[in-house]
């Protein structure tokens, strides 16, 4: 993993304090989340206390501190989605996947994250699976979507 980080560090040769957030973003893009080890490595690289980095990272909702599944589901819970029944969708998702907000299932297939508005209010309620939007959902179409992913995965085995 250290080697993989080296590649990212090379993009920030000046080791400036203001490089912290872009650096963390790049690491999360590559690894899916920020682990303790990576935060420590960033601390060493930028010469900033790990507590400071952890403090900044926890301030922003977009940073994660645990691994994500192969299919990372972001459920929108903005105002429009809320009115259109996002709470119902969340309940159904948690029932189907047997995980809660911020968790990843045991075999690493699905992870769930409830987020504020992702900017597609006209298509509410919606979820995002690995950056692809699935819009105007109801509990039935949601189940269909999850089932189809599971089938695809089973076929692959």
């Amino acid at each position, binding site marked *: 993993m250290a080697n993989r980080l080296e590649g990212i560090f090379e993009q920030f040769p000046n080791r400036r304090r203001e490089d912290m957030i872009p650096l963390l973003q790049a690491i999360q893009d590559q690894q899916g989340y920020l682990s303790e080890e990576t935060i420590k490595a960033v601390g060493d690289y930028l010469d900033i*206390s790990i507590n400071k980095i952890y403090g900044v990272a926890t*301030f922003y909702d977009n940073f994660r501190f645990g691994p994500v599944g192969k299919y990372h589901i972001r459920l929108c819970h903005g105002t429009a989605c809320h009115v259109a029944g996002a709470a119902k969708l969340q309940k159904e998702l948690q029932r189907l996947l047997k995980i809660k907000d911020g968790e990843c299932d045991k075999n690493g297939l699905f992870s769930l994250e409830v987020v504020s508005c992702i900017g597609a209010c006209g298509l509410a309620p919606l979820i995002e699976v690995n950056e692809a939007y699935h819009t105007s959902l109801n509990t039935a179409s949601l189940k269909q979507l999850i089932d189809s992913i599971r089938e695809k995965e089973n076929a692959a085995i």
Partner: protein
Amino acid sequence: MEFKIEVNDKFITVNEGDSLLTALRSNGIKIPTLCHMNRFSATGACRLCVVEVEGKRDLITSCSYPVEEGMKVTTNSQRVIQARKTLVELLLSNHPDDCLYCTRNGICELQWLAAEMNVKERKFFGEKNIHHPDYSSTSIARDPAKCVLCSRCVRICEEVQLVTAIDFISRGNQTTVNSAFNKGLNVSSCINCGQCVQVCPTAALTDISHVEKVQAALGKDSKKVVFQVSPSALASFAVYLNMKIKDDPQGIIVSALKKCGAAKVFDLGFAIDLNIMEEAQTLVSILKEKSGQKFPLLSSCCPAWVRYAEEFRTEWLPMLATAKSAQQIMGTLIKSHYAESSGINSENIYSVTVLPCTAKKFEASREENTHKGISETDAVLTVRELFQLFRCYGLDIGQLQAEKPDQPYNRSSVAATEAGYSGGKAEAVAREVFRMLGGKPEDFRFTIPKNLAGKKETKISIGDHQLGFAWVSSIKEADDYIAMLLEEERDDIHYIEVMACLGGCAGGGGQPISRGFEKSIARKKMCMEMEKQNQLTFASENPALLSMLKSKKVFSDQEKVSDWLKTSVKKA
């Protein structure tokens, strides 16, 4: 430049560039604050310092607003008072109602504010955040439930101590002051200096208390509880109780501890004398190129500083003096020399030190300071805890008859008292070195500026030698100074006294809670008063110490002497 502003229909004179809060306070106008600290940048976090300024729609926080010419300020309007009260009520809405069980009951700034604002009932009901207290550290306990997020601890830890062991984690109503990854302080970079405890307005940061442990030992017939009180704790005790030197604070403490059931009460200054002699000896042997060590020699009696060096400056560790700290010298002496000479089994001795320091608790727990798994020092009481112990036993300090400390460790020299404030120890070591190199005692000159800030270096000359002594207090000052010294490759400084707390032990993390530096200066002055009363100028003149060193038993066993006096630091 000075000009006038109008406050509550009166004109006051203010200095340009001052914050409104500073201007108001220096004119005797009371403004409540929780987050404000002198000498630190304003954060405007608690908002309790709000005032009304004519022409401004909103209330403004006076701590972060500069004075302007022609300003019209109201500090006590209905609107201001109501706003402050609501702020306190909101803070209380997420605060436990357990003042009766709180260590800071009676000295809590939030409690005072609630009383000042006439808060009489809970106004905001709702869910409280669930927090987990952290008792993992050897020195400092954290209870985030009592935290008001004023950020004083965060700022002192980062800006004065360069440690950043704690910081704001998460945001909004989920915010806590916590260590990285929400793990315990014991695995963080915390150096146990206790400055955060000093600045905390509530009981979110407190001591890991040893009072109960000590009480339990005092209650056991089989245990001989021996106390060692440091001169700096004595000075603090005297200042807290407004005692004069003629009241004999040492005698009173001895008497009070005996009333609590202490078997013996020793003078920890005895071991400080030994520590100073050992450090002076090291300096002389480097000078004579007998040891491989190079200058400058860094003092190692401050456990928070040693921890900092181990955590952040491992490259400096070879420069640290190898002398054991006074607490550990005393601990070893009591469990070996004293136990043998008095015929008590060392397992039945319970050794307690009293110091104005939280980091000493950590030091006592260090592996190299244990012998076969048993600590050389069993418990460490901060001055705060000493008063707690006295309160438990219901002692009327004013009625006590002074008693003398017990032999064999009953005396200490001026040097031991000097170690209680920044600059003092450097002087004590310099004096000892001066004597060791054959200087006449009466020729010794060493100048320390009277206030806490100022010049931090001085030179003494003995024969052909010109020796430089420096002293720094607070980790920032120490780190900056030593880094500068090494970068400029200066070789004129031979000894640096490093204290982790501002002003040295006089401003220690285990001192009674007080705001600002006044008390710290008063404690330093008290130390100096105590020095005037003491005839013993040189550590190496201490008769108690000489008689111990003269006893044949001790000298024949070099290994034992080194076991008493030397320690090692973690070579990471």
